[in-house]
């Protein structure tokens, strides 16, 4: 293609191709200042995506449950009212009550804190270890890349729940250990995405320029490669968060989390197993909360992915 004038949708001719591309993509906001401010653009973006807004609200709500459970459910999640055993959902008990007369809604709200902390820790373990490995592999190449690549292959060869179970066998049970076990399962994915991104950015012109102007390798890595590789990794964080909610709840469903009285989503559902025939709300309603959180995290991940592609 040769440099010819380009016409933007609103009919302005631009001679320079780079300018034209940038204006076509971002609108004339920067140069001419005629497009709406950032907030208005964000508003329009969200208006066209009601599903994304709902997903964001669900995640905010659940985070608020974790931060201040007493605001959303003032009751006691541990001790129940024996007279109110196994009541179906009603205005008074939104999610019904369990076999000890505890309000299930209260337990779900209070369980958010432990479930989300475990999930977040798992994602952090996967993110930190995986990104570090991917960063080194993509940046240093050579034998480091080979070793990391092989390690990732091996981690991918064992289904992540079995990998987590092997780690739990060795470490023992408890929320922190579940988090580590789930996090190790996510390392391979983070390492792979980070490596690919670093390979992409470290061949770009600005990295070459930084190297040519004498910057040390760690400062090139920290100031140029890392910030420019972060986008897809962030989208992956959201995606892995959804996956980690599933994995953590599955492991605590199997009984490897906290012992019973403490509310936690997976063990809450596991506790309802004995009343499947009579009290459907004990398993179904907390389960739907998990589904809503995972769906929302996946929706946000998809939005992050597609905005990443636009840039």
């Amino acid at each position: 293609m040769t440099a010819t004038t380009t016409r933007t949708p609103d009919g302005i001719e631009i001679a320079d191709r780079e300018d034209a591309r940038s204006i076509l993509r971002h609108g004339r906001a920067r140069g001419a200042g005629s497009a709406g401010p950032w907030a208005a653009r964000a508003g329009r973006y969200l208006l066209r995506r009601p599903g994304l807004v709902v997903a964001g609200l669900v995640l905010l709500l659940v985070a608020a449950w974790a931060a201040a459970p007493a605001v959303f459910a003032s009751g006691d999640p541990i001790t129940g009212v024996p007279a109110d055993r196994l009541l179906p959902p009603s205005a008074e008990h939104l999610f019904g009550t369990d076999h000890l007369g505890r309000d299930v809604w209260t337990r779900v709200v209070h369980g958010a804190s432990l479930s989300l902390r475990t999930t977040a820790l798992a994602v952090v373990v996967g993110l930190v270890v995986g990104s570090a490995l991917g960063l080194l592999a993509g940046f240093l190449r050579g034998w480091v890349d080979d070793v990391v690549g092989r390690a990732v292959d091996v981690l991918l060869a064992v289904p992540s729940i079995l990998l987590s179970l092997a780690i739990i066998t060795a470490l023992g049970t408890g929320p922190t250990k579940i988090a580590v076990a789930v996090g190790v399962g996510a390392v391979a994915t983070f390492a792979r995405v980070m490596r690919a991104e670093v390979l992409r950015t470290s061949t770009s012109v600005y990295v070459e320029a930084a190297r040519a102007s004498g910057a040390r390798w760690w400062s090139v890595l920290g100031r140029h490669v890392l910030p420019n590789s972060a986008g897809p990794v962030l989208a992956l964080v959201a995606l892995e968060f959804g996956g980690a909610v599933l994995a953590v709840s599955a492991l605590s469903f199997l009984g490897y989390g906290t012992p019973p009285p403490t509310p936690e989503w997976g063990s809450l559902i596991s506790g309802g197993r004995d009343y499947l025939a009579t009290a459907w709300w004990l398993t179904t309603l907390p389960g739907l909360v998990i589904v809503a959180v995972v769906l929302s995290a996946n929706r946000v991940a998809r939005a992050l992915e597609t905005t990443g592609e636009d840039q």
Partner: protein
Amino acid sequence: MARYVARRAAQGLFVLWAAFTIAFFVLYLLPSDPAALAAGSGGEVASVDPALLDDLRARYGLDRPVLVQYADALGGAVRLDFGPSYQSGAPAGSLVAQALPQTLLLTGVALALAVLGGTALAVASVLPRSRWLRQVLSALPPVGVALPTFFIGLVLLQWLSFRAGLLPAIGNAGWQSLVLPAVTLAIPPGAQLAQVLSRSLRGTLGEPYVETARAKGAGRLRVQLGHALRNAAIPAFTMLGVLVGGLLGGAVVTETVFSRVGLGRLTVQSVNTQDVPVVLAVVALSALVFVVTTLVVDLLYPLLDPRIERAPTRKAVAA
């Protein structure tokens, strides 16, 4: 071709060896004392008679240096001998072999359901003329991916077994007891497959050859099933290794929910009792299944797409 197969097989053997080695060192070097585990004290050394510990260490060969134990374990694993179970004393390898057929049956049926259901859903989400119907159908796979396996199992149990009394809730007897677990196990991987396949199908429908086929008067159904689906299937086919691995993992939860005998239940019991040899055998087996599946997928590639002479590299397979 023979050289290619040999190279891929060597790579597979390496992955197997590395998976075994990592699992071995994770399981043997982490905090718990295997002898105390074998004594059934939950890893607490202090609460066990020291003489008993020494006896157990000698019986399981735990008094030898770690590297000697590792070499011995690796040599045994090659012969499918993973040593005696800490719990029952029976060989871990044969415990796994006994549990395997039930799980193979379950995962086999679930795989068939996932592939058929996932493909049907993917095609159904691009086929109808009604835009509204297409949108509803393409909203299903993301929901399926977000469902925890145990939740699907419990809801099916609740409504189809306990309420409607249609199918038995637990056990391994007859095909009726297989239906609910297989459906439970098939939904998440089926949805995953449907997601990948429908995305690739939508991409393929924009290709020039699809337009050509349409221009030549081929019907909607014939274009989508005969022309587009075959080409769109390639990325989905790549996922097969991951899907099979996911099914093995999902069997752990499914067999627990439906109280079925099988590899998953054995795994949960062994994790509960920290029965290291059995866990090691299960991990090695799952790695073997993954390696064999990806190898087969790689070798079948050229049949699906004659343009691919050699199967793609590991990066493409892993993606």
